[in-house]
């Protein structure tokens, strides 16, 4: 907290606010039929993406899941191209071919949202291998849910990354549920960070509703990775404020539980911190709120007015064509 300058704090606030407004608008557009398919929102979990990526450089890489709008925006993607992707437009970040679950931008080094649970971890391990192979200074930050831990890919990736001391940070977003299944009904060890132990890497649990705590943990893991000391596992405790996807009413959760977590809203909490501890005027934050609302409205307008990809391009990019 105290290492961060005021402009950094405001940037963190801005990004978290952007993601929340973006996701609220996505929900609205989904209901209106502008967005279809599977759509998994990140509301409630903003502190993880924003905190983690604040601890990294632009040149570092990110690998994510199907719940990746927040990671992609936090990595610097324009809300316009992310929204356009959700609308399936040719101006979208994956040219309208990927949709909500498959955002990608090589310039931002946002290396993709993957819709197979656990599927991102080996990709992140391989990207880290490419970095280590070249002797480059970057790291890979790999986000995944608690649901990925029972997959072989999780264990195989941690083992290989540890064995080869690869520069990758495994960030597990533990929101207590994989779809309707509670962590304790799916994983024999509920303290997920302890899965680091058998792979001889640091494992730590952080409050994923506290953006600064996430930032600190990822910064430390990144420094370690850059020194050639290999991967880390960070478990961030969080909660998704909505159902698993837009088609899930989340009937398996009690209203009381949801309320308790709403009270820990990472954005409200950070706002209180800024106004109380850093004495930032609420009007400054209100202005950011308004600006981000406008940014999201502009993104919708851009997406709506963008062209559909031409049918003639159906088979383009199946292979690399000269």
């Amino acid at each position, binding site marked *: 907290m105290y290492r961060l300058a005021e402009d950094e704090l405001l940037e963190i606030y801005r990004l978290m606010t952007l993601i929340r407004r973006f996701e609220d608008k996505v929900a609205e557009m989904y209901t209106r039929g502008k967005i279809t398919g599977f759509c998994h929102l990140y509301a409630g979990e903003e502190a993880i993406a924003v905190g983690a990526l604040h601890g990294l450089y632009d040149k570092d890489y990110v690998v994510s899941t199907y719940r990746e709008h927040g990671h992609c925006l936090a990595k610097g993607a324009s809300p316009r191209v992310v929204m356009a992707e959700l609308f399936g437009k040719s101006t979208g970040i994956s040219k*309208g071919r990927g*949709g909500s679950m498959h955002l990608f931008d090589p310039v931002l080094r946002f290396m993709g949202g993957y*819709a197979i649970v656990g599927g991102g971890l080996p990709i992140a391990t391989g990207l880290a291998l490419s970095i280590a192979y070249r002797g480059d200074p970057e790291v890979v930050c790999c986000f995944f849910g608690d649901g990925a831990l029972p997959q072989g890919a999780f264990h195989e990736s941690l083992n290989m990354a540890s064995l080869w001391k690869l520069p990758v940070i495994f960030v597990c977003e533990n929101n207590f549920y994989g779809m309707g*299944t509670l962590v304790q009904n*799916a994983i024999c060890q509920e303290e997920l960070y302890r899965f680091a132990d058998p792979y001889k890497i640091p494992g730590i649990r952080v409050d994923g509703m506290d953006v600064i705590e996430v930032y600190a943990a990822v910064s430390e893991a990144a420094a370690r990775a850059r020194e050639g000391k290999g991967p880390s596992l960070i478990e961030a405790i969080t909660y998704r404020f909505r159902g698993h996807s837009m088609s899930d009413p989340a009937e398996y959760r009690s209203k009381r539980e949801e309320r308790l977590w709403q009270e820990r809203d990472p954005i409200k909490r950070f706002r209180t911190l800024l106004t109380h501890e850093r004495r930032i005027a609420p009007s400054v934050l209100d202005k950011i709120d308004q600006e981000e609302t406008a940014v999201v409205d502009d993104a919708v307008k851009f997406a709506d007015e963008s062209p*559909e990809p031409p*049918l003639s391009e159906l*088979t383009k990019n199946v292979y690399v064509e000269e």
Partner: protein
Amino acid sequence: MALITYREALNQALREELDRDERVFIMGEEVGYFGGAFKVTDGLIAAYGEKRIRDTPISELTIVGAGVGAAMGGLRPVVELMTINFALLAIDQIVNTAAKARYMFGGQTKVPLVIRAPQGGGHQLGAQHSQSLEAYFVHCPGIRVALPATAADAKGMLKYALRQEDPVMFLEHESLYGLKGEVPEDEYLVPFGKANVMREGKDVTIVAYSKTVHDALKAADILENQGTDAEVIDLRTLNPLDIGTVLESVKKTARAVIVYEGWLTGGAGAEVASRIYEAAFDDLDAPIQRVASADVPMPYNRHLEAAALPSPGQIVAAVERIM
């Protein structure tokens, strides 16, 4: 007869087999308290309890592998894969164990395992969630491949799957769950390896399975208005493959169009075409046509997705090419 959905028909089949045979149990992701991602197992956990309706972690390789082991151990597991796309994580246990154990061990064991999985595109779910992968399994000897197209078949074929002794890939189509159909009130089984002539005709044979049966029937209606009398055959199972029914039809019509939702190249329809050429080349008046998905990973954009999938219009066009 009762008018119920494909989904309800599957649910009934599972209940009847759970009632009939204590060895039958179900496991998979969200099959219990959530009632299944597509609600096929809805209500089963309340009726049968956690011992027989088992929610699993997200561990496809081990869910299927444990199904193989449990089957070798004398049980009758029904493993639900949330969608076929995740069967790719389990393909080792499907191909290397389920399909081979009996033969490889000299006929001394058997693997009566039913793997249920929804598949298919059309809902803008993108490249990793829209696949039809039956050809992957048809290629492999030792495992049956069943793809019901109607509510009655969904029930009768699933019950049959649980009575026979070999491993089965039981592939349901995501677009069919809400489809209603007449289902007999009394107990019945639909045995594997018997194709269903859904519509008789004399001018052209349209061979289909799973959802494309309905596309073929729509195409046949359009063709009828144009004066072409199409016969539509639902293969029901690809392994075993009832080529006899197809050949009989082709002998009559002298023309064949094969429709499937998997990718065109290397799809199961190519196997059907080869069998027709091998056995009935002289009966044909025109080259066999295939209508299938374009050879592309499924695009998210709705227009591109629609263009990538087979449609009644494409079937009509294929028939017109050879009439």
